[in-house]
């Protein structure tokens, strides 16, 4: 610490005329002070010791780089281009604080570019600054819909990500709260994995604030009934909220094409490392209509003009309606979020361009379908829905007589992280697992997995 130098401390004390540093703490009553000696582990003051200690700890982890992982289900292993790390690691961005539109212009522009590029992918004109995660975005969007139409019931797919659903339930408040929004699940068709429209119609009413569904769905399937779902919802005056992984939008239609009013989703796949879940990030987007915009809980950044003719600047928009502006009267709340990740996302999308997203999307489609086919060729193993998915698919182990837990343990011994075990989350699927295949998986990887599975279920 710069001012640890005794001479500096003394100079400052002298300047203010205090007898000692301790004296400056006069406001804290004696009775408040702890009598306890803080028993923290010994300090590792030197970087050489600290780094060694940390590396020793990290070495106890086994990563998805040196192992072969098929885990997805909310966090996905996609390629992070090198310049994304370079830009997001720049000290200027890393340590940036919260200056003015002029002093932090470059960062604000990068944020605007995040929103602008994401807006193209999801075909929405209004995009807020990011929120914590996809689940939080969905929760925020449902609350936003509820504020818009005053209704307090939301319909969600039965087989949605239990992780995300738990967050949504939190945001909708527990049933014991007078103001809670009821979360009602809509069945999915066992044959297709898609939403059961009959059940949807049965549960739709003028008390429903919104229907929420995802594309691709938790189980990887592409929900093809978007238009029909939207029609059912809109007829009942409900909002349509669609959750997407934007990395799929080079090949899949953007949700507004099939009737979405609000689009949410993850930003993790757009250039953020998984970091054990620390890469999570979410977004909220919609048409640029005043009634929507005025309900956003996020901070928002708008392009604007400056004193210099022809020059762009970027300034906060609608900040007053946030919790910073209106405290408990604000729209939910905001605070620190994942703004540095948003810069990584912006770099990622700039690198990708339309062709990158198309090429990547096609590659993921091709590889994941090829993987599903190869895995299904293993005796005793089948793939629950053999087509119509993006990146993830359900592998069915029921006929092998082995549990997913047993299979995954055996895979782990071979340096393979098997797909997420669905048996507890979706009992209807029995011993099934959700496998994710992306551009980081090569044909040899798939073959290695298949051979390992053959050996394990034999």
């Amino acid at each position, binding site marked *: 610490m710069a001012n640890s130098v005794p001479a500096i401390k003394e100079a400052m004390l002298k300047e203010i005329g*205090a007898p000692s540093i301790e004296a400056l703490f006069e406001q804290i009553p004696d009775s408040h002070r702890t009598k306890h000696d803080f028993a923290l582990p010994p300090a590792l003051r030197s970087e050489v010791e600290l780094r060694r200690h940390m590396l020793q700890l990290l070495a106890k982890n086994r990563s998805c780089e040196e192992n072969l992982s098929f885990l997805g289900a909310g966090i996905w292993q996609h390629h992070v281009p090198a310049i994304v790390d370079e830009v997001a690691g720049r000290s200027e961005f890393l340590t940036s604080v919260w200056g003015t539109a002029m002093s932090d212009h*470059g960062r604000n*522009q990068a944020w*605007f570019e995040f929103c602008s590029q994401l807006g193209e992918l999801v075909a929405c004109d209004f995009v807020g600054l990011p929120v914590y995660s996809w689940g939080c975005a969905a929760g925020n969007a449902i609350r936003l819909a509820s504020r818009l139409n005053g209704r307090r019931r939301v319909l969600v797919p039965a087989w949605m990500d239990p992780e995300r659903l738990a967050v949504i339930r939190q945001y909708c408040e527990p049933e014991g709260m007078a103001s809670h929004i009821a979360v009602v699940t809509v069945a999915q068709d066992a044959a297709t994995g898609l939403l059961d429209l009959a059940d949807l119609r049965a549960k739709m009413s003028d008390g429903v604030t919104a229907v929420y569904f995802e594309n691709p769905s938790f189980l990887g399937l592409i929900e093809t009934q978007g238009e029909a779902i939207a029609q059912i919802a809109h007829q009942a005056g409900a909002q349509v909220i669609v959750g997407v992984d934007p990395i799929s939008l080079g090949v*899949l239609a953007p949700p507004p094409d099939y009737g979405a009013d609000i689009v949410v989703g993850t930003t993790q796949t757009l250039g953020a490392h998984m970091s054990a879940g620390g890469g999570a990030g979410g977004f909220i987007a919609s048409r640029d209509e*005043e009634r929507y915009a005025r309900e956003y809980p996020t901070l928002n950044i708008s392009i604007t003009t400056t004193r210099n003719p022809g020059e762009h600047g970027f300034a906060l928009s609608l900040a007053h309606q946030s919790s*910073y502006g209106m405290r408990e009267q604000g729209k939910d709340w905001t605070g620190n979020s994942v703004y540095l990740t948003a810069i990584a996302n912006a770099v990622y999308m700039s690198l990708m361009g339309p062709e990158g997203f198309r090429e990547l999307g096609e590659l993921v489609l091709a590889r994941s379908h090829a993987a599903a086919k190869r895995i299904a060729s293993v005796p005793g193993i089948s793939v629950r829905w053999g087509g119509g998915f993006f990146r993830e698919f359900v592998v069915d182990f029921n006929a092998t007589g082995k549990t997913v837990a047993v299979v995954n343990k055996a895979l*782990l011994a071979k340096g393979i992280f098997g797909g997420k075990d669905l048996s507890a989350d979706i009992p209807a699927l029995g011993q099934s697992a959700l496998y994710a295949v992306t551009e980081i998986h090569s044909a040899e990887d798939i073959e290695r997995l298949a051979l390992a599975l053959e050996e394990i279920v034999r």
Partner: protein
Amino acid sequence: WNEPVVMEMGVKGRRGIVFPKAEGDAAALVPAGMRRRSAPALPEMTEHDVLRHYLHLSQQVLGMMGVSLFGTCTMKYNPRVSEALGLRPQMAELHPLQDDSTLQGLLEIVHRFDLILRELSGMDQFVFQAAGGADAAYTHTCVTRGYFAAKGELEQRNEIITSIQAHPCNPATAATAGFKVVTLMLEENGYPSIEALKAALSNRTAALMINNPDDMGVYNPQIAEWVKLVKQAGGLAFYDHANFNGVMGRIRARELGFDACMFMLHKTFGGPKGGGGPAVGAYGCSAELAPFLPKPIVVKDEATGLYRMDHDRPDSVGKVREFLGNLHIVMRAYAWARAMGADGIKEAADIAVLANNYMEKRLLAIPGVARSNPEAKTWRMEMTRYGLGPLKEETGLGVIEVGNRMTDYGIDAPWLSHEPWVVAEPFTPEAGELWSKEDIDLWCDVLAKVCDEARSDPEMVRTAPHNAPIGRVDSEAPEDPARWATTWRAWLRKRAALAQQAAE
């Protein structure tokens, strides 16, 4: 750099990144009607051009490249060794659903850091799922709901008490969680009176959410009594430790009676601000509240020495965010705490409070600067709020104009104040333990110079900045539905509409 918006850059057909070609007819794998019809209008640029663009933007961020005494945030030095560690595959390439056996290092870090925070606060269990300080406050409201639901009092206890000086996230998360918010006002000595608290308390009280000291640097000496009264009323007491920097090493929240507290790991514990996250609000509570915590919890099996995630917590309120939280930031905070040690943490508090009082001496010598709560004559804690009310009265120029002019000297504008502004033309500089005496002196010198300029050359100050990447922005357009544009596509549309209007 006069840098265009990325949406204007590039040339059709350029590629920034390529992927192997898909085998077979991949497009046919998309179900009918679900294929994207028109390509997104993203820029088409080379990797080199993308990199240069964002490097140029990075050079147009002032922030901590100069001297930024950014208050209410406790900016610290962010050790770059942790940034390098964060990019290691053993941190960056971990999936949260990996088997516990493959995450032993990470879980050990979480557990060890949990123990450190327990020691600093006296709490019995910490969780790191909350992705920011506000999210930790929200976590408290969720835990509060769980706690009273289990007691069957959830419908009855629907009020949360806070004070006007508490961070807006406290009332805001309480309201979002479905509670009514009762806000106590400050009195002359800088904090609400105990009588006001008593008047607010009832059998409807679910919790008190409060920070101490506040952003004015005033410590509420009655806080232990407050907590006792809240507990007597049947409520929970939550300590928002956003201003921990002034008291760390001296007090423990649990010893003051608090049931729960939160720390901002991205600031107080040396994690980078990143312009606003990824962040962590570490939430800790008593054993009584622990069953209600979001799950999973990282636990150590003392017999085997192995760590695991405990999902089997029937009373848990569930999740506030997916998975375990921003553990890469927890890793940084743990490294910071280990580098500091108990002595270092206490010394940081010493230096922060010393530096604040030194800065105050210099600031109050500048004509035009006033101190918040002038009646509170004590030494302030780690930060104090000031006001340029006198300057504004004299010159018509206030903190906005002064802040803009300061950036011309390489000093990023100070944080002003959370809402509501209880001090006229407020600003809240915080030196912390990071900034050197010379940096503080420079900051004060620049403020003094700009205050002088406000008198000698007000036009210069009014039209500032003059030395920033861009000129002063129009901040009205972003509030006008016809002109705001959070995306380029909205901008193009509205610009065209306005041009059309103008033509008509």
